[in-house]
């Protein structure tokens, strides 16, 4: 996709002067701050404010987008701060999502790279022009260095020229810096802008908001999805000090309990008695859901994703010297971000409302609130706050928790802010899940080479029935169910991929790396099994299928780099290596897992060596952190986590039943970044897909046990 140089200018209009709020929120009364365009504000003290259109769940866009502006503007990272953009899909849309403001698919940097550089460059040229006008010199001889306009024998802070610059016409084609000029982009010493406030308790997450007069609201929800409130008795709740009232939500999905503070709300909900109408509720168990998925794999798939004949591929495999086959199962998974879901709706003086939310996709809740509260769009404001993780959970197509808050607010007299709070139990039991999936694969190998790969996938579509259907579903195929298989950079002869959708089981949702969470596992475990059948080294074997295109070359390069850094083939005594490599969201990641022990006595994950090619690395240290985090997220879940249903109700309650990765689970991670001049791509998700299969392949190398059904703990694999 090409991003038009004019894209941001289309939305920017003329430069405007705004009465400024200082970053601390205090009104800078006598002074004015200037917005030079929608993405760059400068305070009267000369502090640059990057207006960040993506939310921050830890993945680093506040630092990344600020880096792009600071680079072009000619200021240091200590001279820039950030604020979150308001909800406005015409100006702050994700350029890869169309007219929709949101974060997802590891696109924050990819879609913003040119836009934010242009914004910074335009601001630079306006400031320089204003200085040239003031000094009566030619703008051509001036530049900005560390926040100072210099040239023609003069030097002055950009603060001097902010007001004048804001009155100039924005240049339509500002000159962008070239890579040889970059001070900040690619600089491994650049630190995160949010580190300090996140280490001294000052950072404000949605959960931390206390508005005057606010009511804390928790919802009693049906234990089975789809249950409806028949009646409730709040006489017990009324005994709780701080309880205000309880009321059935208009959609009957739950009872809202209002209280003066969080603990009172939790206690009042505990004391509430609710009768549920379960006639439309989910009643199945996860075993039944699994049985349906596994049965679907025994029939011809509904959809053919590769366009060739399955029977021809099957025949090629049947004629091979050896055939490896395996059936895989992936359970439901919860996202479980560290900050339980929450948001606050505040009534505004003009009859509108402000939603305070760690909003991953502001456009969705913006529209939902306008509809539910019968307000025009411009009377609904979204104030994005820091999010304590998400992994996809804060972006539901139906804006689930913001809708709950809106319904809970709608049935009050709308004079007091309503702060909706979820508990950890709510998060695990009433949530949205990575759908369960099954795969069945047969690979034929003759003379050391793959001669056919037959791959069937079955599971519940995430995208169908959502507003994202048009975007992700083609010819009936939800690409997010199979991504990473039919579009693999591996040059596999005779590859067939088929898909069958299974019935809607529970609410499902994208989960860090979406379809790649299961497809990479299957592709990479099968690659190892095929290599074994071929009598070949797993790295060499893979490289044999990674030639002939830039895509394949980039994947080969990360594989070689990870193998080299991990000293592949020379594991220390008592240790075993497993490898996996996968492309997702435009980025290539290879990982080598080094383990010791065995499945009966306990596996120790000694180290993960990771190599990544994500195009031009903007903030190398943030990239490393995302690789580390994505590896932990992937491995933590395959070790021991799953969501199970009994009679339609989730069986897990809280972290003890959904045990997070702990510090001792992975003893070391080292990350290596491929230097690249390709357009930057995402880093939030791509290290997750290869992490679990690298571990699985290492366990197989250590013990001969290939784990094909997850989590590993359910298959008898112990971890020390």
């Amino acid at each position, binding site marked *: 996709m090409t991003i038009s140089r004019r894209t941001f200018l289309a939305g920017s209009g003329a430069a405007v002067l705004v009465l400024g709020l200082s970053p601390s929120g205090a009104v800078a009364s006598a002074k004015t701050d200037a917005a030079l365009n929608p993405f760059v504000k400068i305070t009267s003290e000369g502090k640059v404010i990057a207006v960040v259109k993506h939310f*921050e*769940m*830890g993945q*680093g866009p506040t630092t990344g987008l600020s880096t792009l502006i600071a680079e072009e503007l000619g200021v240091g990272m200590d001279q820039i701060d950030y604020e979150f953009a308001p909800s406005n899909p015409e100006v702050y849309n994700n350029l890869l999502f169309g007219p929709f403001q949101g974060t997802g698919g590891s696109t924050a940097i990819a879609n913003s790279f040119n836009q934010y550089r242009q914004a910074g460059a335009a601001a630079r040229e306006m400031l320089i022009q204003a200085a040239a006008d003031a000094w009566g010199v030619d703008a051509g001889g001036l530049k900005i260095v560390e926040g100072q306009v210099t040239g023609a024998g003069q030097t002055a802070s950009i603060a001097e020229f902010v007001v004048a610059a804001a009155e100039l016409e924005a240049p339509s084609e500002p000159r962008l810096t070239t890579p040889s000029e970059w001070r900040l982009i690619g600089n491994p010493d650049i*630190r*995160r802008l*949010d*580190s*300090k406030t*996140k*280490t*001294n*308790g*000052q*950072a*404000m*997450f949605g*959960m*931390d908001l*206390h508005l005057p007069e606010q009511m804390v609201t928790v919802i009693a929800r049906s234990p089975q999805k789809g249950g409806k409130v028949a009646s409730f008795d709040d006489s017990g709740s009324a005994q709780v*000090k701080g309880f205000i009232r309880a009321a059935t939500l208009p959609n009957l999905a739950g009872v809202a309990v209002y209280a003066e*503070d*969080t*603990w009172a709300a*939790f206690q009042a909900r505990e004391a509430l008695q609710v009768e549920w109408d379960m006639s439309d509720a989910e009643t199945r168990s996860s075993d039944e859901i699994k049985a349906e998925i596994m049965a679907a794999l025994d029939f011809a798939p509904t959809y053919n994703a590769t366009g060739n004949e399955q029977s021809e591929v099957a025949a090629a495999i049947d004629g091979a010297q050896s055939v490896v086959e395996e059936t895989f199962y992936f359970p439901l998974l919860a996202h*479980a*971000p*560290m*900050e*339980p879901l929450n948001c606050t709706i505040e009534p505004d003086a003009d009859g509108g409302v402000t939603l305070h939310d760690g909003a991953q996709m502001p456009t969705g809740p913006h529209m939902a609130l306008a509809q539910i509260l019968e307000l025009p769009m411009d009377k609904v404001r979204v104030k994005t706050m*820091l*999010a*304590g*993780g998400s*992994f996809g959970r804060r972006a539901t197509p139906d804006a689930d928790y913001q809708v709950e808050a809106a319904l809970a607010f709608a049935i009050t007299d709308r004079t007091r802010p309503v702060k909706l709070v979820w*508990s*950890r139990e709510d998060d695990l039991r009433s949530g949205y899940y990575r759908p369960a999936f099954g795969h069945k694969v047969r690979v034929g190998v003759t003379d050391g080479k793959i001669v056919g790969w037959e791959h069937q996938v079955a599971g519940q579509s995430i995208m169908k029935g959502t507003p994202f259907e048009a975007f992700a579903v083609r010819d009936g195929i939800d690409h997010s169910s199979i991504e990473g298989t039919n579009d693999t950079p591996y040059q596999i002869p005779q590859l067939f991929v088929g898909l069958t959708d299974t019935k809607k089981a529970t609410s499902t949702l994208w989960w860090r790396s979406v379809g790649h969470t299961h497809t990479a596992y299957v592709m990479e475990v099968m690659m190892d099994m095929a290599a074994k059948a071929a009598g070949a080294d797993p790295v060499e074997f893979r490289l044999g299928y990674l030639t002939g295109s830039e895509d394949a070359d980039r994947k080969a390069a990360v594989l070689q780099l990870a193998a080299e850094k991990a000293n592949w083939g020379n594991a220390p005594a008592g240790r075993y290596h497993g490898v996996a490599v996968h492309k997702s969201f435009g980025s290539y990641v290879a990982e080598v897992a080094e383990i010791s022990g065995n499945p009966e006595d306990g596996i120790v994950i000694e180290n993960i060596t990771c190599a990544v090619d994500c195009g031009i690395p903007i903030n190398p*240290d*943030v990239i490393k*952190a*995302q690789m*580390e*985090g*994505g*590896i*932990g*997220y992937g491995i*933590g879940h395959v070790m021991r986590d799953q969501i199970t249903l009994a009679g339609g109700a989730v069986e897990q309650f*809280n*972290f*003890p039943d959904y045990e*997070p*990765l*702990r*510090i*001792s*689970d*992975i003893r*070391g*991670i080292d990350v290596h970044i491929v230097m690249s001049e390709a357009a930057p791509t995402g880093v939030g998700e791509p290290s997750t897909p290869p992490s679990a299969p690298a571990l699985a392949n290492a366990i197989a190398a250590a013990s001969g046990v290939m784990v094909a059904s997850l989590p590993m703990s359910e298959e008898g694999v112990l971890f020390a």
Partner: protein
Amino acid sequence: MAISLKLNGRETTVSAEPGTPLLWVIRDELKLTGTKFGCGVASCGACTVHVDGVPSRSCQTYIEDVEGAEVTTIEAMEDIKVGAAVQQAWVELDVVQCGYCQSGQIMSAVGLLAENPKPSVDDVHDYMNGNACRCATYQRIRAAIERASEILEA
């Protein structure tokens, strides 16, 4: 019910009902929101504070049990030598991602280094295993504890 405690060095009286977790008194009544709610059942460590110098899960500490105690939260860590060293190391190494667990991580790390200034990797694992980080910043937490130990030694 009025309960007195010493919060971050200051005599403080709160009016919570008996049975109220210290966490909610700190967050909702005293509006010190650096201490986080993650699970409510003592299994994530996000709510860790120091009670008489010992890291404690405030979600499972009842307010009546800290009558007269010294309670210290993340907001006061920069005033303590070990706390300041740990915070410095955390910033140097950019440990944080979403940041939501990090107050608790730091409170535990300070507790560890206060009693064991040169912990081994196993010591770190044992002490810090109760602090979950869903962003999996563990690699850097390990490194930052080592760095803080160096800072304190210098």
